[in-house]
């Protein structure tokens, strides 16, 4: 069991401490031992970068049934390695995004335990990228994301970087989450052929610039520049749409990609459906009351003053069937790709299918039966292959099969709930 105790501010500077603190139990006999090692796997922009290992803990919590190591990691050095300062080309004439000066960061904390005197590592372990291969994500408990910029705050500065930068906005016409990356608020002198780029940090998508200039006669003029308009793409269209059921609330979500605003026209949908527009999502919502077949769904969407136009053109049927009842049960899908089969989930009571379960089968179990450890068995396994439990598409725990044939592994299932989607997989890598 790993609990994230604290993470850095949403915006941090690379040359000041960036601390992640967690409470970590051993993966074996936590009532007796604290973990011999705890890892913090650092991910920059969603890609694994490097791991920090810690054996010296800031504290040990012996107050509960399980002993917990309180561990703290400083990500500052890794951020300094990763972030770069880049000089813009002389006279550059377009707005450029500097992806080397900022990174989005999160950590995954992994524990360990002693098994027969040997350190057993919580897996799977992440793998660094090489020149020829991409990085491979590992397991562990993930922190929330935060941003790091290539900056150094001084002793006198407000340690909250966002608050610090707010004091250097040169005037009041700045967005709440837009900041200058310079400490000079003052006006500047510039020659007629000089180069300069003004650096800003923002959570907005910059789309247009307005140049206000005064000529030698003292008259002000304006000139505008806007980013070229992006195309339009609609994600989520299927033909037909997933069926609706009588008296059951129906929701279908479409994601729109491209420049806002999106103009919605020629809407042809059943009366029981309503359009919901949130962010860049167009949702169809409603509760049908009568059966129907292949009802027309047609919506025309355009952006960039009509430059791009796409149409959702599909059908939807309403069935008089009761959808599968999943409330109160946990569904675990078995995905084994080496011919092996899952033989048991002790102490879970499996309703269906009768075990062993094979590739692609859903095992439906009483959700309330989950508490503590669950032993997952397998048969026809291959030595070296991995038995893995995925929670919501992320590896939750992994185990390397030590022998060919049948075996089992204890997985901790304390932190699963009814909304989690659990996959049991046996994989070669």
């Amino acid at each position, binding site marked *: 069991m790993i609990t994230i105790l604290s993470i850095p501010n949403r915006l941090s500077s690379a040359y000041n401490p960036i601390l992640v603190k967690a409470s970590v139990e051993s993966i074996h006999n936590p009532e007796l031992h604290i973990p011999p090692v705890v890892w913090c796997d650092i991910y920059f922009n969603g890609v694994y970068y490097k791991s920090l290992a810690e054996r010296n803990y800031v504290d040990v919590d012996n107050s509960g049934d399980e002993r917990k190591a309180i561990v703290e990691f400083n990500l500052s050095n890794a951020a300094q390695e990763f972030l770069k*300062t880049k000089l813009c080309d002389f006279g550059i*004439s377009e707005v450029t995004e500097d992806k080397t000066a900022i990174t989005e960061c999160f950590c995954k904390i992994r524990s360990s335990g002693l098994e027969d005197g040997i350190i057993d590592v919580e897996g799977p372990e992440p793998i660094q990228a090489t020149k020829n291969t991409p990085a491979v994500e590992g397991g562990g408990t993930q922190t929330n994301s935060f941003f790091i910029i290539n900056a150094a*705050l001084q002793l006198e500065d407000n340690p909250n970087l966002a608050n610090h930068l707010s004091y250097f906005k040169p005037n009041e016409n700045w967005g709440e989450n837009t900041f200058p990356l310079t400490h000079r608020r003052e006006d500047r002198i510039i020659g007629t052929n000089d180069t300069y*780029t003004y650096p800003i940090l923002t959570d907005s998508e910059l789309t*247009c610039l307005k140049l206000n200039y005064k000529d030698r006669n003292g008259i002000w003029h304006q000139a505008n520049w806007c980013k070229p308009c992006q195309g339009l793409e609609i994600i989520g269209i299927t033909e037909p749409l997933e069926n609706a059921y009588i008296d059951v609330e129906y929701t279908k979500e479409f994601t729109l990609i491209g420049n806002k605003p999106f103009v919605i026209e020629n809407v042809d949908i059943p009366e029981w459906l309503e359009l919901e527009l949130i962010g860049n999502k167009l949702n169809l919502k409603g509760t049908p009351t009568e059966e129907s077949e292949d009802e027309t769904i047609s919506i025309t969407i355009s952006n960039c003053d009509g430059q791009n136009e796409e149409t959702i053109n599909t059908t939807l049927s309403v069935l008089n069937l009761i959808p599968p009842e999943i409330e109160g049960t946990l569904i675990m899908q078995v995905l084994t790709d080496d011919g092996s089969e899952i033989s048991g989930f002790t102490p879970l009571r499996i309703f269906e299918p009768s075990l062993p379960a094979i590739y692609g089968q859903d095992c439906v179990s009483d959700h309330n039966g989950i508490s503590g450890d669950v032993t997952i068995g397998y048969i026809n396994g291959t030595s070296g292959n991995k038995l893995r439990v995925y929670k919501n598409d992320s590896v939750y725990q992994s185990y390397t099969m030590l022998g060919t044939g049948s075996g089992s592994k204890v997985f901790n299932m304390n932190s699963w709930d009814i909304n989690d989607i659990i996959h049991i997989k046996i994989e070669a890598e």
Partner: protein
Amino acid sequence: MKVYNIPAGSANLSAMFPNLDFSNIKEYNLEGYGESQCGFIVNDECFNANGEPLIINDESEGGSEQIFHTPTFFVKHCSDGVRVHFINFLGKFDVMQFETINRDIATESDSYIKYQSPGDYDKRSGGAGRLNVIATTVYEVSEPVDEKDGNWLTEILSSPLAYIEWKGVQGQPSSYLPIIINDASYRNRKSSERFNYEFVLKFTIGKSKNTLR
């Protein structure tokens, strides 16, 4: 969050707005706008990202939110100053313009004594020779500043990486030249004449002259 470099120099904006003649401009500033607050338009009615109706007035740039407004840039015509670009404490390049400039060529070298055989009376040979000649360009530039500038002037003095602008010659495009800022101290508060501060920066061009052996 994102970091943007906004073209703000006259050379940058001349290329971005080709119809502008900077020789006729006295001052300018830049405003930046984010994405339209209007996420959807249905039946000519605008809705924001939360699906709530949005009223757009004439000053809101079609629903776009103003996200920044730079300080004013005053155009100095006929300037032959030196512009130093340096990494600031926020990891980006800042620039300072100096109008008072002293430039020296400095050389360093070693010497050796040539062997001359007894009885050799060639007047051209013999005596001391010079080798390992290193010739560098050294600048001492200065600019009047205010006492309140003292804090950020620390950033230029302690910057590990800096360049000066170099106007292209012999048909080459303009570029930057790397410089090494000399260690120095700057008194940013005086006990008298606190209205009058002069910031002096000494630096050497990072690449020495190519000399012959």
